[in-house]
Structures are given as structure tokens and as C-alpha cells.
């Protein structure tokens, strides 16, 4: 972890020495995408570093100083940062990045949001997000959209380096697409088309028609055996990932968002696992694994600990390698 952080810090420092645009993000995933697309012209760093639950961050005064010098502040939105965003922005006294200004962005504005409550919303439902599930970065397609939007934003702020941003974006997309589908398919069909097919649910059909079904690689190939399989998660943080890779989240250990697992609810989860045949309980390292282990011990399901953000795990060095780790652990856990 220390090595990863030192590398990130050194990269940020060396980039900052000649960067044109200074970007501060809330989560490390947004910073990773911004750094990939911005390249040498952008210094990108995140407020949250390491294995931290992004819901529970405190508005440290040092965050205010960092945001004070930012040209662009990027948050996830959907009230993920509701406890600390406003105090940090207020304390920064930076007019460029206040909510509503051109230097303030919510990444969730660009993507399709899931789990939007449809009826009345109250705290009786737990620490609910009334505008939808904020864990948008857990779908690599959303990361791709964020990269495209950020490249356009950087271009508008620094047209002199437009060419650089476009080529950085192309490199990021190529790496992400290859990791998703395998590089051979990306060379043959192009990443855009593969995503279109995958999103429409016709990827394997189209590949079969083109005689390329055997070429499928990457995360999709690894996750294919789990398609439609039931899983249990600790928090509602894997719904985007599940939606993308066809997993079926049948329950969470939390009885309601933000509440610790209760014995009564765990008993229900055990019954759900029994009735659905779920084989994996997926949770992040910043949650206690005691309850998951207890449920696993009574059901035979495996507890799979995965990073939720870049930097949560030594191998999750950037946005693409984050999914390498998640996909490897979940796919191996199913064996």
C-alpha cells in the first residue's frame, strides 16, 4: 500500500510541476481516470486515499487547502459525499469549484443511475440515497463514459493540448476495452461495437455470427460462468458491477443501507442463500468480515473480500487494475 501511495504521490508531484489543469476528486477512481486522460497536462489527486468507506469521510481542514488550489473538483454525487463535500467546498473559499460553477462536476450526472427509489423516501429505509445508488464507478462502462466526458472537459479548458487529451483517451479506452473483452476482439471489431453488443445483451450471439465466439477474453470471459448466478453483498455497492456482468444480487448483509447486520437479518440472509444457492458473499475490506464469515460457516458460501476503490489493494493501482482484482477474486471465488 505504501509503495502504491508513494508512486501515486510522486507521479502527482512530478505531473504537478508542469501541469496546466489541477484536478481534485473525492474518490481515487475518479483521480485515476482523470490522470489517465489528462496525462502530463493534468495533475489529479483524490481526497480519499486507501481503504476508506467513501460514505464516512470527515471534512479534514487539509482537504480544504487542497481544494483551494483546484481548477476542477470532481465528485461522484448522488449524495455519496453529502457529509463532507459542502464543508470542504466552503472551507476552500475557491469560487471556481463551488457547486453550480464550471469547475465543479458530478460524475454521476453522465451515467445511468440504478436503484432510484420510486416511492416515498424516508430514513426509515436506512441511510438511503434518494437520487439513486452512488457506486457508479463499479461499472467499467461508466468509467469509460467518465473518461470521455473528462477528455472533453479538459479540451474545453486547455484547447492547446486537445490532441494530447484525445490520444490519452484513446489509449485509456483501448486498455479498458481490451481488459473487458480481450485485445484480439478489440482489434477485430473495435471497443465501441463490443460495448454496444454487450449492453444490448447480444455479444455472444454477434460473436458467434462472426465466427469469433472463441476469441472472447478479458473480464467478460472470466465472469461468463457466473452469468445469472446469485450472490450476496455486504452493502448495495456492487449493483452496478452485477448489472454489467450479469450477477444476481439476492440480498445484502446490511438489513438497510448504513445499518450493521443484525442477527435477525442474517438469519434471513442464511435462508435466502439456502433458497437461491448463492455461493459468494462479496464485501469490501473496510467492513467487518465477522458477520459474513458467520453466514458463510452456516451456508457453505465463500466470503470474497474485494477492493472497492483504487488503492484499497496493492494490486489495484489504477482504475483498470481495480477491476482486474475484483474480477479475479469473484471469478476464483466461484470455483
Amino acid at each position, binding site marked *: 500500500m505504501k509503495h502504491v501511495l508513494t508512486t501515486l504521490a510522486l507521479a502527482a508531484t512530478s505531473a504537478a510541476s508542469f501541469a496546466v489543469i489541477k484536478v481534485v476528486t473525492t474518490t481515487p477512481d475518479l483521480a485515476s481516470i482523470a490522470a489517465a486522460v489528462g496525462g502530463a497536462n493534468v495533475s489529479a489527486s483524490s481526497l480519499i486515499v486507501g481503504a476508506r468507506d467513501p460514505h464516512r469521510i470527515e471534512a479534514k*481542514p487539509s482537504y480544504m487547502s487542497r481544494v483551494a488550489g483546484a481548477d476542477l473538483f470532481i465528485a461522484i*454525487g448522488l449524495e455519496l459525499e453529502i457529509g463532507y463535500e459542502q464543508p470542504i467546498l466552503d472551507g476552500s473559499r475557491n469560487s471556481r469549484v463551488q457547486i453550480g460553477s464550471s469547475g465543479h462536476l458530478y460524475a454521476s450526472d453522465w451515467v445511468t443511475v*440504478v436503484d432510484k427509489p420510486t416511492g416515498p423516501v424516508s430514513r426509515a429505509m436506512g441511510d438511503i440515497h434518494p437520487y439513486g445508488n452512488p457506486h457508479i464507478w463499479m461499472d467499467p462502462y461508466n468509467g469509460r463514459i467518465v473518461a470521455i466526458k473528462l477528455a472533453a472537459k479538459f479540451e474545453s479548458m486547455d484547447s492547446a493540448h486537445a490532441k494530447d487529451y484525445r490520444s490519452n483517451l484513446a489509449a485509456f479506452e483501448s486498455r479498458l476495452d481490451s481488459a473487458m473483452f480481450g485485445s484480439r476482439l478489440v482489434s477485430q471489431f473495435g471497443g465501441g461495437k463490443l460495448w454496444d453488443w454487450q449492453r444490448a445483451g447480444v455479444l455472444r450471439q454477434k460473436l458467434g455470427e462472426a465466427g469469433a465466439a472463441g476469441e472472447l477474453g478479458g473480464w467478460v470471459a472470466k465472469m461468463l460462468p457466473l452469468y445469472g*448466478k446469485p450472490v450476496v453483498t455486504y452493502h448495495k455497492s456492487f449493483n452496478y458491477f452485477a448489472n454489467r456482468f450479469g450477477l444476481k444480487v439476492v440480498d445484502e448483509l446490511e438489513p438497510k443501507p448504513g445499518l450493521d447486520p443484525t442477527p435477525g437479518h442474517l438469519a434471513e440472509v442464511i435462508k435466502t442463500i439456502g433458497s437461491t444457492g448463492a455461493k459468494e458473499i462479496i464485501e469490501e475490506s*473496510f467492513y467487518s468480515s465477522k458477520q459474513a464469515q*458467520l453466514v458463510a460457516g452456516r451456508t457453505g458460501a465463500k466470503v470474497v473480500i474485494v477492493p472497492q476503490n483504487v488503492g484499497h489493494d496493492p494490486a489495484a493501482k489504477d482504475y483498470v487494475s481495480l477491476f482486474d482484482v475484483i474480477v479475479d477474486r469473484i471469478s476464483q471465488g466461484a470455483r
Partner: protein
Amino acid sequence: MPLIFGKTIVAAIAAASLAHAPQDQGASIQQGQEAPVQESAPTQQAKNTFNPQISLVTDFRWNAVDSDKTVRKRGFLKEAELGLASDVDPFLRAEAYISFSDEDGESKAEVEEGFARYNNLAPGLSAKFGKIAAAIGRVQRNHADQLNWLDYPMMVEDYLGADGLRSGGGSLSYLIPGARFNELTLEVLDSHDKGIFAGGSAGAPVVVGAYRTFLDFNEDSSAQVGLSYASGPSPVPGTRSDLIAAEFTYKWVPGDPGRSLNFETEGYWGKQGGDDERKFGGFAAVTYEVRPRLFLYAKYDYSEIPGGSEIHKGPSLGATLKVTEFHHWRAEFQRIESNFADPRNVLNVQFQWVIGAHPAHKY
């Protein structure tokens, strides 16, 4: 909830007789068959409305044990605080906190704070005007519901009044550019009616200057240090009082769930007009999260009361169960010793909840 977790799981499993229906999410996905990824057009978040953020915090107390037999043991709603916050226009953000409190059986309503702030007067510069909490020290700038224990330390009441120094005036605050947080604050406030600045008739303002800095030692540990100075009219006509405050806060918050440590200490060196010597009041407190949501704390208070030779002091021990971010239970035992009264032992229980706007995660 971890507290009731453990062996009770067995009983709970046995008791769970109702079948639990799996969630609908992903129900359309069939094993081994591809299906379209659930998507719809992105929409802009309709977050910003013209309604202010509204919150209500209530503090219910039960005075369970008190060795002072003149104090009536009872349960009472000590305070209900209504908070309102909103952008006024592109330049100004306003906040107001209205407190409804029970003081010795009598209800009292008071605007605790009510101000509007220009956040971007110039690079790094903000200003607020209205009734504000003076930038003296750290603890008294917090509202009572934000404390890690039941009440303000003794020295706050002795030097600044029961709820600290909150008065009408203006505050200029400058964030010094740089990687490290360094903040300078200058305030001019109307004279106060409590504490060492209770010199309303003097017609002179209280002037406050403060410096705060912040240190990030690593991902888990950080500290805040501050120094402040205030000068203003005193209760003794024709004299002025002044106060020096020093604050230090250290926090250790690792990524592991349910572990954190918070150490806070603060000292006041105050000289009330007419006094020959400067008096000292201070406290030190440590709060430790022993398991998720359960905090144990110990605090020690010491205060030389200005305007005389009286001293009171004593330890406090307490526990807080933060059931969720929105409500907690707290029990605190405090022993108060003094050179002017018999020792007093008090046990209070607090039940606090908040509705409305999400509470800010202040450092």
C-alpha cells in the same frame, strides 16, 4: 447491530419463521443467458431546490443520579435545535440555528447562530456577518450536539458563558495558500452578557484573533492546533478582559472498521478586568471506539473561576452508542470537586436524534 450480535444469532435463526423473498434486482437475468444491461438515459440530478436544508436535533436528558439532593432528578428535553441552511444567491450562503431549551423548568427560545457568509470575497478570503460563534478555541465553536461528551467543559461556562461566546458581529477568515492548512481569523463582535466579556454597558466590542493549522501525519493520523486571543469589555466598568486559548486535537482513524481514537485538549488563560492575575481553565479528553459505533471516553476538567478564588474540577467517564449516524445514546458519570462546595457525583443519560438534512462530518 454488533452489540446484540453473537450467540443471539442462534435464537434469531430459529425465530425467523417467515420466508424471506429474494430481492427483485436482477430477477430478469437467467443463468447462462445474456440479457440487455439495464440502462436508461442519464438524467441531471435535481438536487438543488430553493428550499433550505432543514434539520432538527433534540437532546433528551435523564438525570439518573445526583448526590446534590437539591437537584430534582428528572427526564427533560434539554434542547431542540432547528437548523436552516441555504444559498442566498451566487455570492452568499446563510445558516441559522434556533435553540429551544429547558432551563430549570422554563422554556427558552434563542437564535444560537444566524449568519450569512461570503465564501469567495477574494482568493482565500471569506467573511460572515450576523450572530456567530467566536473563533475562540475549538470546543466552544461546536454546537452542544457535536460534542463527544454531554456538555461543554467547565471552563467554557466560567469564561464565556454556558453556551460559549455567541454574539453579533463580523468575521474575516483567510486561508493561507499552500499545501498545508493555515487559517487566520479576525472578528469583531458585540459585547457579551456572560463570562469575562460581560461588559455590555461598556459599549466596546470584543475583538478576536485566531490561527489554526492542520497536520496530516499519515492516512490514519492527523492533528489540529490552534491559538486564539480575545479582548473585550469586562463586567467591571472601565476595565477590559482578555483571554488566550490554545487547542490541540489528535485523531487516529484507521481504515479498519470500528476503531478510532480522538484526543482533545484545550486551555484558557483569562484575565477578567479588575482581577490581579490571569486564571486558567482547561480540559483533556480521550474518546476511543472500542467496537463499531460504541465509544468510551474519559475527560478531566479544571477551572479557576474568574473574579474570585473559586476552583472546580473533576473527572468524567462516559459511553456513547451511535446506533446510526442519526441517533445515539450516551451515559456519563461526572464527579465535581471544588473549594467552595461538597463533592458532587452525577450520572446523566442522553438520548439524541436528528431529522432532516444529513449531519456534516466535521473534523
